């Protein structure tokens, strides 16, 4: 049948285009960062004295550390609150309230990062500043980042919990297990894959967030000594410097983009492989 064939061909072609975009991105990042990599090699991005691209110093390590610290810190905040929210809507909230709670969490997911950034800068930073300094530091960035990725954890955990067989919960209740015991022993372990997936996705979101962090983290390129010290993430660095970067510097910024991309791809591929083997569990 001709039309069936052409449908297959067309849709497959479209699928190939969609899939190729990621390759195109990697290709362009590589192309743009080749000059820097060829000239500087990989090691200088880790061994140089500091980050002063105009003075020929290109150490990315403090920014990598700051990126990892803010993202993982965001997960530390988002995971308990998000899972708590998911448990709340499924087991604790009255039905009407549960529906509203879900809707509000979805709304939280939709708030643009600049709005988070603005709120963090004008409202949260002065509060954090009572601990000293300007209030623009890794802690502020982490808190706001945590709020931003919280809906991802909450919504995916919610889906995972709602997908659990009702019989397990009824069975556990019939055995005289309390609500907290059912949640703790049956629900959370049962939904751990879905919840874990949500956390990983939230982690990639946190790793990818730019504007709010740029507005809140203080942007000092220095190995952070505590959560209250300022820091600059790789994303913020690109956003701060790409605008004025000249050729060589621009290329270095593409290297940091490439690195960011590598970290995220490794995480995503790891998860997709794990999901591929889900049936064995």
């Amino acid at each position, binding site marked *: 049948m001709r039309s069936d064939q052409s449908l297959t061909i067309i849709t497959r072609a479209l699928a190939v285009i969609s899939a190729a975009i990621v390759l195109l991105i990697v290709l*362009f*990042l590589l192309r743009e960062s080749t000059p820097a990599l060829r000239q500087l090699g990989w090691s200088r991005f880790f061994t140089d004295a500091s980050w002063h691209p105009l003075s020929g110093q290109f150490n990315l390590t403090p920014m990598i550390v700051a990126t990892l610290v803010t993202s993982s810190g965001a997960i530390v905040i988002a995971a308990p609150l998000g899972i708590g929210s998911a448990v709340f809507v499924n087991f604790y*909230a009255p*039905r009407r309230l549960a529906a509203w709670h879900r*809707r509000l969490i979805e709304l939280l997911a*939709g708030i643009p990062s600049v709005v988070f950034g603005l709120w963090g800068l004008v409202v949260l930073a002065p509060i954090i500043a009572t601990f000293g300094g300007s209030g623009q530091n890794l802690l502020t960035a982490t808190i706001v980042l945590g709020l931003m990725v919280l809906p991802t954890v909450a919504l995916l955990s919610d889906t995972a919990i709602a997908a659990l067989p009702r019989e397990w919960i009824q069975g556990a209740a019939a055995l005289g297990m309390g609500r907290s015991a059912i949640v703790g022993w049956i629900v959370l372990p049962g939904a751990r894959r879905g919840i874990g997936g949500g956390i990983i996705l939230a982690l990639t979101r946190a790793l990818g967030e730019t*504007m709010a962090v740029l507005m809140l983290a203080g942007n000092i390129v220095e190995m952070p000594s505590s959560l209250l010290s300022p820091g600059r993430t790789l994303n913020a660095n690109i956003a701060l410097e790409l605008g004025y970067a000249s050729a060589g510097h621009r290329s270095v910024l593409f290297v940091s983009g490439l690195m960011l991309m590598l970290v995220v*791809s490794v*995480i995503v591929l790891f998860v997709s492989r794990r999901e591929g083997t889900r049936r064995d569990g």
Partner: protein
Amino acid sequence: MDSGPATSRAIEVRHHWREFCVAVAVWVAATSVICVLIWILADIAIRGLAEVNFGFLIEDVQDAGRVGGIGPIILSTGLILLVCLVVAVPLSFGTAIALTERLDKESWFARNVRRSLDVLAGVPSIVFGLFGNAFFAIALGLGYSILSGGLTLACMVLPILIRTSEQAIRAVPAEYRYAAAALGMKRTTILFRVVLPVAMPALAAGVVLSIGRALAETAALIFTSGYVARTPESLLDSGRSLSVHIYDLAMNVPGGGSKAYATACVLVVLLLAINAATALLLRLAGLHNRSTTGGSL
């Protein structure tokens, strides 16, 4: 009963305590999340709502945004979204159809397409900005333009749109296909006459969801669609999106604060409307029956 009544009493007290503590913790977690959300929304509303009126929505941007409205910004945002959707929707519907053509098990093709889309979904928005700047703006010579921005956003929303479209198509009961196939219909006919019409509300919900994501984006647009705050005359003109306008007013323009908050109000209201639209469409599609499982233990 092995454990006597005395210990049983103690266990019950302990259970009560545990139940109480866990319940308090869960309520506190849920309430604090909502409180922070309300805090943020209230903060924006208090600082900005007074500036929002019909004139604000249609007037020109004047004096770098300190005076006037956001008419051109809304137009640019709309055009960027339009470009984004014109490209992303056919691509993702096509891809979703290709990914769902075999319902029994994943082919090698589908598995790898999906894997690459998973990676695409994780790409940081600033990297999309880098890519869009290098590819659309410079390599293709589109410059800072609505077209560059829209195409960059199209790449960005593609994974979400494909994922939701795929789910929408899969959610169509297999019996429909079997019934249609049993009547001797061709695959194409089944797809366009049976499957897609049924999946349409859910497909539309996916589109609306991607619009929400695209609306909220800032980082990818600064280096692609640029900053120009005026009415664009063609897709090759630069155009400033709502979120970029908020950033610019707040960070670049002395005395731009209240207008920044007013713009944020408009953006949040738009997103609220989009959320409501998604929920409605999903309910029409019968996909959103989760609320029936809500309840107490």
